[in-house]
């Protein structure tokens, strides 16, 4: 396919900008080059996507996009190709365009896309595998309500041909329902593969209020097993529609706290066990989703298991950093489900550690910039006290540090047990100073808080650069 002059100009402009930015700061260039290229020619994204003639996977959903896409990338690499990826979490059209500018002659791609950007790239170039992870409340001021988004996704899926494998989460009723064309009376779409967790979840359970109605008949759903990360085993009390039997199942997840899991998966290609060095049950679910996508793209199960076992945390996703002889975990926590997941990980690791000294503090950096969602009321939907216990040592930080402190006060924290420090790096130093030497502490951060703190750590040569 030959590009128009305008498209070629767009791509050269973007590439030049990328080279220039890299000279100034190697961590930059995840958005601006794409923005410039799309400014010159809005159709450049489509043109660049259509050049990829190998295997393409898109990943979307509220949480887990970055990790799942990077795990699929690892599987494709294990399979001998060098796929394009946008693994810095730059998942809007500008970030996708920036990633594609570097493509060279790569033939495969594993791309994460924001819930809205997904519609555009699927239309531009349908993928071979489309992974939809989960849907929960996230930045309602940006995306509007989940039900409206689901309607758009359904229309998108109706327009896809049979060459796109749909990899859907059976445990999330709203995502699973997308596997059917209109009503559950007919069989699911032919190209659909479900993945689901069939393990005991020892973490505290709460009613899955985000997904309490049947997506088909709107009667209440009844849950048997529920998962701390949301969803579970459901059946509609009205029409009888129930969680589909997964094609890819997680049948064992033995937790080793922040060190990850021993996992066992059952797939249409057989069974395998491997260790996953990513903590948190949500990451076990992400690994299962990646396993399903890679398998459907033709990667063998043994290659998948090896690639997953060798994978390490993605940028800012439980990324371990060392500071003054203490381990610091950076945990992206940008919405109720993700923050709940992070707190569960902290609680789980503290439960596993036989501890004699004082608990290390938890730092939560809450920013309210555009990319974080400017409405911070979602922190009131997270059960801080129920997960880590009221009074747990805490450092509140970010542009809305005072809102965090207020939330904790009403959840039972004595005011003097919460340290408030708006600036992220000084807050981290304060938290580290209160962490016993040889112990680990966790920093939970919204999107721009993560970028800001990480940039500061890179500047001080305390964290590696992204690329």
């Amino acid at each position, binding site marked *: 396919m030959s590009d128009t002059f305008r498209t070629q100009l767009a791509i050269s402009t973007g590439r030049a900008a990328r080279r220039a930015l890299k000279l100034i700061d190697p961590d930059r260039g995840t958005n601006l080059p794409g923005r410039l290229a799309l400014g010159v020619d809005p159709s450049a994204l489509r043109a660049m996507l259509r050049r990829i003639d190998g295997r393409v996977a898109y990943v979307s959903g509220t949480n887990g996009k970055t990790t799942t896409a990077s795990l699929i990338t690892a599987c494709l690499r294990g399979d001998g190709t060098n796929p394009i990826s946008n693994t810095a979490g730059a998942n809007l059209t500008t970030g996708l365009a920036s990633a594609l500018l570097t493509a060279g002659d790569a033939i495969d791609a594993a791309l994460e896309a924001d819930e809205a950007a997904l519609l555009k790239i699927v239309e531009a170039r349908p993928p071979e595998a489309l992974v939809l992870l989960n849907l929960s409340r996230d930045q309602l001021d940006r995306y509007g309500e989940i*039900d409206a988004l689901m309607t758009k996704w359904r229309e998108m899926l109706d327009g896809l041909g049979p060459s796109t494998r749909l990899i859907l989460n059976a445990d999330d009723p709203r995502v699973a329902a997308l596997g059917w064309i209109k009503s559950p009376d007919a069989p699911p779409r032919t190209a659909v593969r479900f993945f689901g967790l069939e393990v005991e979840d020892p973490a505290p359970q709460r009613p899955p209020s985000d997904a309490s109605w049947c997506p088909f008949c*709107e009667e209440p759903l009844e849950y048997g097993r529920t998962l701390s990360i949301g969803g579970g085993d459901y059946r509609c009390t009205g029409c009888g529609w129930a969680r589909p039997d997964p094609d890819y199942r997680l049948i064992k997840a033995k937790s080793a706290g922040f060190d990850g899991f021993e996992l066992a998966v059952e797939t249409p290609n057989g069974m395998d066990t491997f260790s996953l060095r990513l903590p948190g049950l949500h990451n076990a679910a992400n690994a299962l989703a990646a396993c399903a996508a890679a398998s459907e793209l033709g990667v063998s199960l043994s290659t998948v298991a090896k690639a997953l076992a060798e994978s390490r945390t993605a940028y800012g996703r439980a990324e371990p950093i060392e500071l003054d002889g203490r381990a610091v975990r950076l945990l992206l926590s940008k919405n109720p489900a993700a923050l709940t997941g992070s707190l569960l990980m902290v609680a789980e690791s503290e439960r596993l550690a036989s501890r004699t000294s004082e608990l290390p503090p938890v730092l939560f950096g809450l920013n309210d910039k555009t990319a974080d969602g400017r409405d911070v009321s979602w922190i009131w939907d997270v059960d801080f006290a129920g997960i880590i216990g009221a009074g747990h040592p805490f450092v509140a930080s970010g542009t*809305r540090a*005072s*809102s965090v402190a207020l*939330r904790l006060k009403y959840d039972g924290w004595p005011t003097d047990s919460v340290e408030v420090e708006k600036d992220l790096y000084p807050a981290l130093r304060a938290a580290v100073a209160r962490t016993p030497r040889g112990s680990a502490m966790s920093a939970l951060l919204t999107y721009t808080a993560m970028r800001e703190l990480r940039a500061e750590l890179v500047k001080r040569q305390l964290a590696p650069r992204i690329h």
Partner: protein
Amino acid sequence: MVGVRDSGAASSAEVLRIAHLFPGAMGLYGDQGNVLALRRRCEWRSIPVEVVEVQSGDDFAPADWDVVFLGGGADRDQEAVAAELAGMRAGALAEAVDDGLAMLAVCGGYQFLGQSYRTADGSLLDGLGVLPVRTENGPGRLVGPIEVEAASEYGGILVGFENHGGRTTILEGGEPLGVVLRGYGNNGEDRTEGCRLKNCFGTYLHGPVLPQNPGLADALIRAALERREGSATVELAPLDDRLELDARTVAANQDSRKKSLLGRLGLDF
């Protein structure tokens, strides 16, 4: 109904009973924080308090309660609750409000308390007729930080975050909760925000509104105590609200522009 642990009898006084209507379906945007704020501010003053979650299908008699809270939900959840509420002695709720029942309704809950709601496709849904307001779905959503000047007995300056597609108009006899200093309020045009009738408050403010506007929280508690004790003035013990007021100040200073200049250039890191 599910009882949520009461705070133990710190005094022999009667327990202040708070009903939280449909917390599951009508619980978007952290609005459950409002109920927590009421509960804690009673507990901190040793006022015995009990919060009960009223679920779909429960028998709910408005006159049995001291405070009633109703939040907002996603469109679909809201429709399911609309049917439920309509069958729920709307008349009894209006009577209780007329009798001085302390009530707070936020966003979708506020719209429900009105006379009617005209949806995007033009159909007209009946409201509960408790508050003299009418709401119509408008083009686009009104989203952003909001600051309102209310009477000092309701907390003075109120700060929150609004996110609504409905445009609400106050009808004859109605009184706004406050005047919009920044943001949209009821409809983005007449600078009114919310509606108050006796001790019943409807508002578009999320945040949630009560924790960071403790004056409004205390106004509800005071009204409930006054109604129960039949006394004209109840003095609430003062609390240390420094953290509440800090959070309110920071929220009030939140940038209301949709994107900063750097954000427009993709540099809003």
